């Protein structure tokens, strides 16, 4: 089982950086076997292709606005994930959905894609998360661990 756990988002815009912070927290809290790679993808696009290609499982962590109270955690999987990112067309027109589409086209699509989201409060300039989002980062890291265990990956808490 070859896995990438990737947080995406901008660390300079408060809750926008929750994905990166969550995978950092996950790496701090848990010990994973070498077949699991943990990456802060920032806001990069096509540079991330080399990390996504050829994985069995891709777990993405990002802020997701779904109309729920701030800090709410959500989970999406399969075809819903590229569909969600499809609306994210920057002037580069290359987002996560495009990367996934490229993987599909080059037969390198991860077999399984799961997205964990957290509802943001503030996307203003700043390095700190809002209290509501910060309070749930630990739980978000736990969800990633639980997901990995479902796939038979040995995840152990750091004591």
């Amino acid at each position, binding site marked *: 089982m070859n896995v990438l756990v990737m947080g995406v988002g901008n660390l300079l815009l408060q809750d926008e950086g929750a994905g990166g912070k969550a995978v950092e927290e996950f790496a701090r809290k848990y010990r994973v076997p070498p077949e699991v790679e943990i990456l802060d993808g920032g806001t990069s696009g096509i540079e991330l292709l080399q990390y996504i290609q050829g994985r069995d499982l891709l777990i993405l962590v990002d802020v997701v606005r779904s109309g729920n109270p701030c800090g709410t955690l959500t989970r999406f999987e399969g075809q819903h994930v590229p569909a969600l990112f499809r609306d994210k067309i920057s002037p580069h027109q*290359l987002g996560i959905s495009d990367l996934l589409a490229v993987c599909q086209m080059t037969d390198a699509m991860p077999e399984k894609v799961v997205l964990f989201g957290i509802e943001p409060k503030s996307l203003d300039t700043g390095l700190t998360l809002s209290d509501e989002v910060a309070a749930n980062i630990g739980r978000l890291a736990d969800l990633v661990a639980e997901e990995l265990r479902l796939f038979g990956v040995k995840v152990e808490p750091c004591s």
Partner: protein
Amino acid sequence: MAKRITIDPVTRIEGHLRVDCELDNGHVSKAWASGQMWRGIELILKGRDPRDAWLFTQRICGVCTTVHAIASVRSVESALKMEIPLNAQYIRNIMIAAHAIQDHIVHFYHLSALDWVDVTSALKAEPRKVASLAQGMSSWSLNSSQEFARVQEKLKGFVGSGQLGIFANGYWGHPAMKLSPEVNLLACTHYLQALEVQRKANIIISILGAKTPHIQNLAVGGVANPINTDSPSTLSLERLYYVKTLIDELGDFVNNVYFTDVCAIGASYRDWTAYGAGVTNYLCVPEFPLDTKGTVFELPGGYIPEGNVGRFSPIRNFEDESFVKGVKESVKHSWYKGDWNRHPWEEETEPGYTDFLEDEKYSWVKAPTFRDAPAQVGPLANVLCLYAAGHEATRKYTDKALATIGKLSGAPVPLEALHSTIGRHAARGVRAAVLYETLQKQWQLLMDNIGKGDTRTFNQPEFPKGEVRGVGFHEAPRGVLSHWIVIADKKIKNYQAVVPSTWNSSPRNAKDAPGPYEASLVGTPVAVPEKPLEVLRTVHSFDPCLACAIHMVDTKNAEIVSVRAL
């Protein structure tokens, strides 16, 4: 009566680029570019240790991470008047050149080719004919009819499944699409091959930069790469020879695929040399420092006013006053308080949003000027300035591109044809070829210097009491990037980044002169106002990069998704 079109790629998130055009008789008569540049970096950096700034600035943008790191350390080194060890210059130079080549390849194939290439037309091509066409252009080993047939099958499956993904935003069957099915399949095949090739540039950057995205090896004063030719945990000979292999693989693609494709598409769309010139004041800065003081450079910099290559004036080094004193930014038409026109060191950033008021304020982008005039930056500015300066490799590849396009299209192409939409693509191809030579040379210089027994990579910075100012500039893939820093008592007092897209996507300035995007769109024909492909062609030719900073997902617009809170 004039018709108005607004192109707003993302309507649901503040920021990004919006372009408004007035159409008269099927042509653009007036245009406005409105965007949200990153405008908060100084808020984050104020009061911090200047040695840490680059780690934050490389988070400004997802695509240009390395370039903001480089410009940032240079700004602090400029303020401290530091010398940088040769090895550090060369290692930085290799990362800069590799990143630029990767960026140009990705821009051509993945960000703009679909403005010119029709994927659905490629399904009708005859793979054998594509192979004979391609083999007549270059010796690239993957130009075989089997490869073209394989890609065509893949495309059929992809288009048939409705999962267009990356191809979903194309204007298929648009009357302005003119390539034959064979050229379309050729370009689509190279599009996929380019995905693989661009990774090689990233591997070079991750070997030297410790990781990518977000390199970790920079330091104010040099780089953090220990050099030991035998130790596997440092920059060893084995690693350096692997870098060389990757450099040559990149070069093979640049010369035998990218460069020839640019010429072929340029020849097919030769009419586009008549559109998209806009602002023809061109600005670039010298790049690839070859000495410790930053006074000698591999590629020169300079300024060309009004498209007149004969009036080129050089920008010689990191201290050159014509650059340091020549830059100003105006907020007359930008969403900031006041209507000042100031030097970056004197700026303050107080937002003052007013909604889109085309005669007043309408953009988050400030309007930079050089010698009080708007300037175009980027590969075209770079290539024209280098050509004017007599840079040998640039002349060689520019002449080759013009001759090839002339031969393929049946009439000579003058240098002036480069002042255009298609000229910006051609210049990027020329620059990639020049950068491959640069990359080889920098690698050799590094090897030779290590061979002499020099393993130094870092000089310790020393901060004086009181106030010092610096500017770090960098000829980035999208053009002139400058970071301006004021340091007071070892802490950052002010920090401004004037990025390439600020120059190109500039709104009207203090004298109401339009910026490069705005000026370049005037006169562009638009066949179908509801599908303004032609406008996108010109805007994309600049390689726009605005506020690529937010990746938040919004479920409101994806109806098929039902959200369950955990």
